[in-house]
């Protein structure tokens, strides 16, 4: 067992190394091409330029990265906290399912980002618009996956628990909820990607803080190196959230290790 774990983390280290190497090769090639062809900095900045900006403007970028992270966290948690109980309610009550589900399918198909400008009218320029957009973006994948999770239990298992004399609460606690954890988590992993997409768009149109806002402002000044630096910071924020979710999965769903890489 111990060697299996060592093997797994060893593999993870190799994977990380390979990824780092690929990024290094890409940036290196980029650097060389820009230098050889003497492309001006206002057209395509060199990696050395924008990576340096990440250092010289660390405080500025960190401030906006923190704002973005907060927005993601709030919107995402709100999305999960609403989506999971709602999914349970819909699955449990047929009437809710017939009434609500078509509406939810419709809202899910509609591109969420188009409601951004409407939110601006309703809530003005500020963090609320971003939080709501993040909420909307991650709400649907979490809810749809939670619903299939709450439905996933084989009917015959309920025969078995009923012969044990299980109460409805015990059925929920021992069967439905744990069985739904895997799908809920899968929905959350899709949701976080959507959330990050949503937050940047929301910050483009309606915000005075966050990496999206920083990119827009830098664009106004034609400050391409800052834009690229903010882009890298966005990617780092996305990586951070992904890493937290993936790490949490090991803790929360220890049985699903064969599904995790």
């Amino acid at each position, binding site marked *: 067992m111990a060697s299996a774990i060592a093997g797994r983390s060893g593999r993870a280290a190799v994977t990380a190394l390979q990824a780092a190497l690929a990024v290094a090769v890409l940036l290196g090639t980029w650097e060389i091409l820009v230098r050889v062809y003497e492309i001006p900095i206002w057209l395509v900045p060199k990696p050395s330029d924008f990576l340096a900006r990440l250092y010289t403007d660390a405080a500025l970028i960190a401030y906006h990265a923190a704002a973005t992270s907060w927005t993601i966290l709030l919107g995402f948690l709100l999305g999960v906290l609403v989506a999971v109980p709602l999914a349970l309610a819909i699955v449990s009550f047929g009437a809710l399912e017939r009434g609500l589900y078509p509406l939810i399918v419709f809202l899910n198909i509609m591109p969420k980002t188009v409601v951004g400008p409407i939110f601006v009218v309703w809530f003005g320029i500020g963090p609320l618009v971003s939080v709501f957009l993040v909420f909307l973006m991650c709400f649907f994948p979490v809810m749809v996956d939670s619903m299939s999770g709450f439905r996933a239990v084989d009917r015959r298992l309920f025969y*078995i628990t009923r*012969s044990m004399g299980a109460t409805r609460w015990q059925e929920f606690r021992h069967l439905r909820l*744990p*069985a739904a954890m895997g799908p809920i988590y899968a929905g959350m992993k899709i949701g976080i990607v959507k959330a990050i997409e949503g937050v940047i768009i929301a910050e483009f149109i309606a915000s005075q803080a966050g990496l999206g806002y920083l990119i827009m402002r830098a664009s106004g000044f034609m400050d391409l190196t800052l834009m690229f630096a903010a882009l890298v910071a966005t990617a780092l924020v996305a990586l951070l959230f992904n890493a937290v979710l993936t790490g949490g999965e090991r803790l929360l*769903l220890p049985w*699903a290790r064969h599904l995790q890489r």
Partner: protein
Amino acid sequence: MSRGASIKVRGLCKTYGSGARAVHALGPIDFDVAAGEFVSLIGPSGCGKSTTMLLVAGLEPITAGRVEIDGRPLTEPLSDVGIVFQDHLLLEFRTALGNVMLQQQIRRLDRDEQRARAAELFSRLGLAGAEDRYPWQLSGGMRQRVSIARALVHDPSMLLMDEPFGALDAITRTQIRHDLELLWLDTRKTVLFITHSIDEAIGLSDRVLVMSPGPGRIVEEIPIDLPRPRPAHLGDHPEFARYARRIYDIFENLGIYRFHRDRP
């Protein structure tokens, strides 16, 4: 140790659905299972074997007739029972031991006592060392053994098994059948065992009830008078061949088997 309970079934019918969609699936059927007896139900697909089991367990509403357990009419899901289905139906998020301890948790039984019983069952069923493995880390045969342990850990007086070995390969099936027989010989629980396999029915049962479809009926009752424990390879036994032949003949007479000589 809990001794077996008796089952008495009279005029039992089941119709699924209602109106134009109604399916008369079963009955009326009558049969008895004595306390501690091992009885098999055998019959073609769709003849109502699973339905019979669910009605005896009180898990589906009865359309007509009655079921009595130890002389008392059944009015709610039978609790003093262990159930095994064809699929192991283990919870993927629990370890092998965790799956078995579900009984203790839901029934609120004594934890240490149930753990001790689980440990004993694990060793008797050849599962020692597999306690902390998740279902995906077990072979199909081991999963089904865990599911049998789950059905027995609370020491019920009755075991209901719906094609429990149906999904297993022939080698595993022979072994697990033998293990079940030994376990039953030690505990003498009442067993209602559903199967498609003539070998299994004869290899395990005190009595075989042969069913026919449309709607499900019991057409023949065959006491199996063979010494126990019965050998893995029953084919050598002349008595076995006679019993098997009888069941084949019933199926053939019912038109369930259609062999080459029926060809025009």
